[in-house]
């Protein structure tokens, strides 16, 4: 697998670390069901066969966390964005931050 880091260009898989699902977001710790929400956030994962958004870390490169959309069946990568940009957009959408 080769991932195109927005900062460093297309680099080999060995430079990256994988953490997993980018479709889950840290819940509101002050929410009414915070404990149940955090439980889901920490443990519950779908396991899609097909397109999936995942968090990858360019550990042997620029240290950026990336949101990579990858087909889990073929490793085909359809998009890469920095996690920071995705998170900023997400927070704006939530009306937070």
């Amino acid at each position, binding site marked *: 697998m080769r991932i195109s880091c927005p900062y460093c260009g297309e680099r080999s898989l060995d430079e990256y670390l994988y953490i997993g699902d980018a479709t889950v977001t*840290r819940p509101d710790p002050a929410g009414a069901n915070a404990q149940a929400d955090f439980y889901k956030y920490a443990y519950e994962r779908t396991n899609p066969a097909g397109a999936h958004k995942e968090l990858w870390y360019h550990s042997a490169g620029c240290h950026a*966390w990336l949101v990579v959309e990858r087909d889990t069946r073929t*490793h085909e990568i359809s998009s890469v964005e920095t996690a920071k940009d995705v998170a900023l957009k997400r927070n704006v959408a939530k009306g937070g931050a």
Partner: protein
Amino acid sequence: MSASQTNRITGKGLIDRRKPLRFTFDGKSYDGFQGDTLASALLANGVVLTGRSFKYHRARGILSAGSEEPNAIVELRAGARREPNTRATMIELFPGLEAHSQNRWPSLKYDVLSINSLLSPVFVAGFYYKTFMWPSAMWEKLYEPMIRRAAGLGRASDEADPDTYDKSNAFCDVLVVGGGAAGLMAALTAGRAGARVIVCDEHFDLGGRLLSETQLVDGKPAHDWVRAAVAELRAMPEVQILTRTSVFGAYDTGTFAAVERVADHLPKPGVHQPRQRLWRIIAKQCVLAAGATERPIVFGNNDLPGVMLASAVRTYINRFGVMPGKTAVIFANNDEAATTARDLATVGVRVAAIVDSRPQPSAAVRDAAKTTGARLVSGVVADAKGRIAVKGARIVPAAGEAFDVSCDLIAVSGGYNPNVQLTTHQNGRPQWNETLAAFLPGSSPKGMTVVGSAKGTFSLPDCLAEGAQAGAAAATAAGFSAHVPQVPKAEAESYGVVPMWRVKEAKHKAFVDFQNDVAASDIDLAEREGYRSVEHVKRYTTLGMATDQGKTANVNGLAILAALTGKSIPETGITSARPPYSPVSIGALAGHHRGKEFKATRLPPSYYWAKEQGAVMVEAGLWMRPQYFPRAGETDWLETVTREVKTTRSAAGICDVSTLGKIEIQGADAGTFLDRVYINMFSTLGVGKARYGMMLREDGIVLDDGTTARFAQDRFFMTTTTVNAVKVMQHLEFCHQWHWPELDVQMASATDQWAQYSVAGPRSRELLAKLVDAPFDISNEGFPYMAVAEITVCNGIRARIYRLSFSGELAYEIGVPARYGDSLIRALMAAGQEFGALCYGTEALGVMRIEKGHVGGPEINGTTTAADLGLGKMASTKKDFIGRVLAGREGLKDPSRPALVGFRPVDRSARLRSGSHLLPKDAGNFASNDQGYLTSVAYSPMNGHWVGLGLLSNAASRMGEIVRAYDPVRNGDTLVEVVSPVFFDPEGERLRV
């Protein structure tokens, strides 16, 4: 010509007769030529018996001339370089080559274990599962050693591999796999367009079948055209030719794995030359021109030496100038019979019969029979005759009586299987083609085009044209302007295959998988026992599971199974081919990552000084750290460590703590950020102060601990434990970039930038005062416990000083830019001499932390919460932080969860062992009585006995209770008392003075 090479044909072949080479096989000397393989040289010398088979120890010879070889498997070289299971057909002859046959005892000709043939009912399909089941102890003691000896998979050398292996990355526009007719045309066309081309071929010369056939290309012998094509490629600066290189895996994003046998054709690698090189090739486009593999026909005794694939027969004749027999019978289901008969007759081999299994032998075959004077039979060869070599063939005509023909060679062709393996490595499924009776590439990976016989195109003019088109298309797709050139002229050939998988008239064992000794009868049995799925039959019979990956076996086996189950071949399916396409040595995969070079070694700044002092080093992750500093006269490590602890606690001790992770954290929101990652508050920390902090994972379990100092309102300096330095950095960046990107905070690892020493003990202040530049006030009032400052030392060297203590003594940590680390340890030791200061290692560091009850790696072990470690009260209730919510789960607050306490032996002379399980005093040794375990133990010099930290259920209410520390692994069973985890200076008076 050497007298021994009785089968060498005068004036034929591409070998270099000016360069004779001497080699040995099973201890006997032979001669061959440069350009021979071991297989061709053996055949030249009349050696047809090359080994015994895996299960039945049947005599086996050379079946093929390529990487598909399942029979002629030998041990190559001797001593440390001995390598088992190498294919004689792929070994290039070199001077002094030494090879041995496998699976024979005591000798190849008189093999005692060929009695296995008589026991063959024992070795039928599924024999591993049936025979060697009970009792299980027999497996280890009897069955496995017996199978290993009898089934001889060759002997690996016991010595360390003396060779080196390299790894390389390459990038190209067009990767061409296979340098035969189609591959050469593709490479030439793409190369002429200016594309960066890499051509890989597993053989030592490019040319593929063109080197083995007598066809003309552009009116010249094919190998002349090859020579010109290769010369043109070599002259192109952007073209790289990798011969002796097998592309064994096709991965996503145009990534390919290949292994280049750099020096396997030499007696031994040259100085600084790797034996093999693993290539990772990143290609924009790939042209797969991997050719096709001829398949045998399954008839009786079809494994006898002297039964050879027809294409291999032609290779030995035309390429190597070797006559593989004197009298031949050709058995085929296609027109290769005609070419083979002509090539044999040309070099004087008598073609006794051509047996054509097709309903009607083709005109080409009829014609060849006439020219060569061969008897043409419409029918089958039912059995090969002979004991250790072919003596004849039993032929069953379509009409009429069976009869025998004397011969010493049976050239067999069951048609061709395109080498589609690389198209399937990413789940591509080959498609069955009824006309060609073969699997052709289905979908191939993105950017890959299949050409030539790998695609089922068996006629030379078509192969050349396809290669040219694919080369132009690939170069164009990679951004070059390419055009399809005039293709060289060649004559079209006929094929006309009609399936013939298994000769039902066979009387003897008929083999499908030669290397794993799987016969057609094994598939019959598997089918009778209910195995119908091809994947099940494969595993039950072991068909196709040997190192040849069933290249000559799989399709035949599949067809036989299909016939048995009454299904079509596509309905029966095909097993998946996975990387590697051909065997790859572990050495090549490891490359330079062996022994000490397996991973990088990190040296702390005081390393060389410590070595000078005779320190004993210990690996701590990647770091090499001083473990202790023995002195003359000391007899064991405990004596040394005890002295180091006592001296530190009575005078001064210095320890290199540079390995701790160090992270600069800056920005207006740095305090807020730290509040969110630590369980305790950092935004309230005063400038010029440090605080101990603990961070959790989101699931509430402790991630790491350490101290963080604040040098300015917006500037913090965090330390982590040595082992978690990388993980914490990653975690902080994750939290910032993914959770709270809006925070104004930046961080950078500074672990390697600072050399940092702990200076501990009652004399540490006096010691440091000698190095700290005026006017900095190091007194207790001027620089109290937990103060930090940016200062200079040793006349102007920038430094950071921290009043921190891990040992429990009055102590400091002093950091200087890493390049001063060596100077500083020397300066510290010189300054400390008058106070009796010493340097201590990781052992004394550990002893002092256990004496003080500080948690370390064994306690922060991925299962413990802050509360488990007695630090629950540190958690702030005024803010959220990572792990807060889930740490509040009921199960994690259960008081019966094992929590940190101290232990001391009731018998003060007893030794404690970490890992000992804690049981109630009078309880039995049952897991159900387990209440925790000892995490860290040490001999405490200050207490004069062993002390331990551990995790114990309901710990808070059990002070003073006596429990058992039970250690069945080391026969330990010690009564211990539950005590406070702080064994020394419980009030902490020593560190605030």
